[in-house]
């Protein structure tokens, strides 16, 4: 395989390793906070989903660009029996 500049990087300095470690810890903490925040939004989201499913039946679903199709009742999705998540 061709050698790349990235393969020639010197080892991380101690100060850079410390920076990376601190930032990894911060990312993990932030991710957990976002998961919690988004779970707390669930009651509002339930209402938003209800309104969205009404909109695609009345104004229509954007198939491509501004082309819309009104979704009939029989095509509407059914909520599965599992915990709903928006952050993965």
């Amino acid at each position, binding site marked *: 395989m061709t050698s*790349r500049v990235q*393969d020639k990087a010197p080892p991380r*300095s101690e*100060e850079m390793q410390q920076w990376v470690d601190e930032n990894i810890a911060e990312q993990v903490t932030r991710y957990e906070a976002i998961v919690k925040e988004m779970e707390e939004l669930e009651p509002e989201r339930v209402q938003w989903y209800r309104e*969205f499913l009404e909109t695609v039946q009345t104004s229509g679903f954007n198939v491509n660009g501004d082309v819309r199709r009104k979704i009939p009742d029989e095509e509407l999705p059914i909520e599965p029996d599992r915990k709903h998540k928006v952050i993965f």
Partner: protein
Amino acid sequence: MARPHIEPFVELNEDFKKFQVSGFRGSHYKTLSLDLATGACTLKVRFDGGFSRKPGLSYSDMELFVLTGSMKVGKEVYREGHYLHVPAGMAIKAIDVPDGCEALVMYNDSEPSFEESDKNHQLALKEGYVSVNAYADMPWAPGNVVQPSVASGCLLKLLRYDPLSEAMTFLYTLSPEFEQNNISYHDCAEESYHIWGTSWMLQFGDLPTGGYFWRPPYINHGSFRCKKGTIAFGRTDSKLHNYFHFNPWSNPDENMLRAAAHLYRQRPQMFQWVATEGHNHPHGPMDFEHKDYQSDRHILDIHGHHHHHDD
């Protein structure tokens, strides 16, 4: 490991931190997202008035977008809206920031790095260099460069396009009263920073000025609303295809299966070759045109093959 799903994150609510690392002293930063394995990251950096740095290079591809203020790089002055893509190993001239500047700074392959040098590394792919003022030097184009397309009212300026992965860096704007009634997901990771304005997505609610997300592939987002207009900076890490649907409860595994069904319908020969003939190319099949693409750092990263230094 890759970057965690960070969505939404409003950086204006956070304080800057001192950048206490060689090559960056005299600046402050906020980390917007970071790859837990490689240290690749997107930062908002505040270069304080008086910041200066000698010519030098990074061992990572680096992108920069000036949000406010200006910076002098050699004899050129980069003002608000200036975009740079500097390939790994390419030396950039001395930086001076007399009056302060804020920028998005992205290291795509590894943690931030700086080595003083006025010469390019011998392996630098300097043809990949991009320098353009996205506000002044480029027209807005319709968002329908990708089909199926976003609704009209979403406009783009394509700042960088990677021909190997079809990764893109772009500015986009949503017009006032923008509305798009579908749920979308992509095969690529997607990133956005709101320079100005608030838009709304069905799963996450409002994303205001200073709002940011890094979203891994196959995650539902949208429908979309924007009341007063938004201008934002965005990136993808590979080809963006809009998979639209109206099932708010589908999960990434189901979305990926649906994407595979799309491949089955639309590229039948390729699907057969990949899925049913037992080909096993963990580092990618041969490409007679791009013989070395398997060692491209970005291609390795998007396949989750993390790298080790030669030395």
